[in-house]
């Protein structure tokens, strides 16, 4: 019987081995999800470059507003869906921060899209840009509830006027300089906030009702 007492540490060693294998598989699983996003991201990056190039071309030759706006809206919708999926997966990512990096890349992409939109607006003002700033890292319960309502309300408005609105959600707290500069430029101090057409700011739930009034 005394010899059998070795089972205490033998079980421990086996558990550690199995646990390390399981942990490694978990990390591999999460990393492979991030890998899938790399491919999507490269596609989106190409699409953005295409959209930007199109805008640049139009600045040289005669501008066809409808085409430029449509291209921007389509691209915005595409990356909106991709990043919504990314958000959902990120919530389930427990062992690694590989999706956090993917998230940052998408945020940069969205800032670029926003700048491109501002550029187009100079010549084609007949569409709306709605930029939604939210907190990604550790929002409080109240903030999370507000963000749920903000994103749902914006989603509804976007559904109502799909071809007239470019909806750009941006995580404002990921520590990217480009985002910080835009935050300062438009005085975004509270999260969540919504900036409509770069001149109307919405910071509270009550103000959300007014958003339709600010749209062209």
């Amino acid at each position: 019987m005394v010899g059998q007492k070795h089972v205490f540490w033998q079980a421990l060693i086996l558990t550690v081995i199995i646990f390390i294998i399981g942990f490694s598989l978990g990390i591999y699983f999460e990393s492979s999800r991030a890998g899938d996003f790399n491919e999507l991201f490269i596609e989106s990056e190409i699409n953005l470059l295409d959209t930007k190039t199109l805008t640049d071309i139009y600045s040289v030759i005669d501008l066809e507003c409808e085409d430029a706006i449509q291209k921007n809206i389509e691209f915005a919708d595409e990356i909106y869906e991709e990043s919504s999926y990314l958000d959902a997966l990120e919530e389930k990512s427990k062992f690694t921060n590989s999706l956090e990096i993917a998230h940052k890349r998408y945020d940069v992409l969205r800032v670029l899209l926003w700048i491109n939109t501002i550029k187009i607006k100079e010549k084609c003002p007949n569409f709306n840009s709605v930029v939604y700033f939210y907190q990604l890292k550790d929002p409080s319960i109240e903030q999370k509830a507000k963000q749920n309502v903000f994103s749902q309300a914006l989603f509804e408005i976007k559904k109502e006027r799909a071809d007239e609105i470019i909806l750009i959600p941006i995580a404002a707290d990921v520590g990217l300089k480009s985002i910080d500069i835009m935050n300062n430029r438009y005085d975004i101090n509270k999260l969540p906030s919504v900036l409509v057409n770069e001149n109307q700011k919405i910071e509270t739930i009550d103000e959300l009702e007014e958003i339709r009034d600010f749209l062209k």
Partner: protein
Amino acid sequence: MEWLTIIYLIYAFIGLYFLIFFLLIYFRNRKSLFNYPKITEKYEVSFVIPVYNEEKSIKDSLNSLLNLDYPIKKIVVVNDASTDNTEKIIKEMVKKHKEIKLVSNSKNLGKSGSLNKGLEYVKTELVAIVDADSYPEKDSLKKLIGYFNDEKVGVATPAIFVKNSNKFIEYLQAVEYVVIAWTRKLLGYVDAIYVTPGPLAVYRKKVLDEVGGFDINNITEDIEMTWRLTKYKYKREMNLSSKVYTTVPNKFKHWLKQRIRWNLGGLQTIIKYKSETFSRNMISYFILPFFTLSLLMGVVGLLVFFYMLIRNIILHYLSTSYSVAIQSALIASQGINMNASVLNFLGFSMLILGAFFTFLALTVMKQKKLRNRNVFNLGFYLIVYLSVYPFIMLISIYKFIKKDIKW
């Protein structure tokens, strides 16, 4: 990594450790699980049965003892001031069987007090303690006697099975008792048996005298006595071939009351033996850490559960009230995130392993009837029944702190 993920991983690690621990012992000893030492020396055995309002079961219980195929010197029935017909039934039995002796307490002494009183009438080398609602199989006692050839054995106990397993709540307990019996046997291989339960336990009388009899302040005298024997370095043995059937609660409130009592007794025992933490015996090496860990895991798990529940309720309340304020669609209408995390896979794997462990226990213990009931029953046992334990633990701790400790 989030703190919740870390807690989740710690739970999985501990669960996996004990699973591997039991499986290692099982696979090494699977051929000897049902073996037991032969009787090389005849021992005289007496029984002590404490009874309190047991008019429904005492007659059958005594008859099962009288039918044992090992000679019994005396059966001391201690009536602990019953208020029903228990005494009358015992007196009728006494008239027919000279081995039975009735001892009547003028006032209720509790189970431990009654046991100690009964022990005063025992002069044999071995004494078996039996609950009045338990029914040993004919050869159950004979199969335990051989263990006492080893002078260091203080107590030997059989496998306890459920007598009444037709109702769903009884079925759940029947599965639980089988798993407990199997794991208790496995713990016996590493000298880690931590309870020799009330339905039947055979003690060496001089050992009971040496350690001072049952603790009248503890409401689970069987747990406390086993820890005390461990402290005194006496072996506790278990025989899976020896079987006793016991009646289990068939109503939720009775079941709850019983489980709270077990937990309260466990807490009393932990407190009593806390000074053994650094002593070099199985209490400090395994039993005390095992009990304390179970307690901590139950409580922490429950606190995390409540934390998450309350957080989600607040989140939904706020989201809904904000939505109503702006007359927007309710958040509940949004899509549900169906993507599985690694932790979901881990939880699922642990559930499968738990099911495998329970299934293996039922197979090893030859409990085909319990094993082959529909999968839903076993699933309910694993997911719901075992999940109730932390709640019981929390109630018990509350009662323990309030000193509301009663049978």
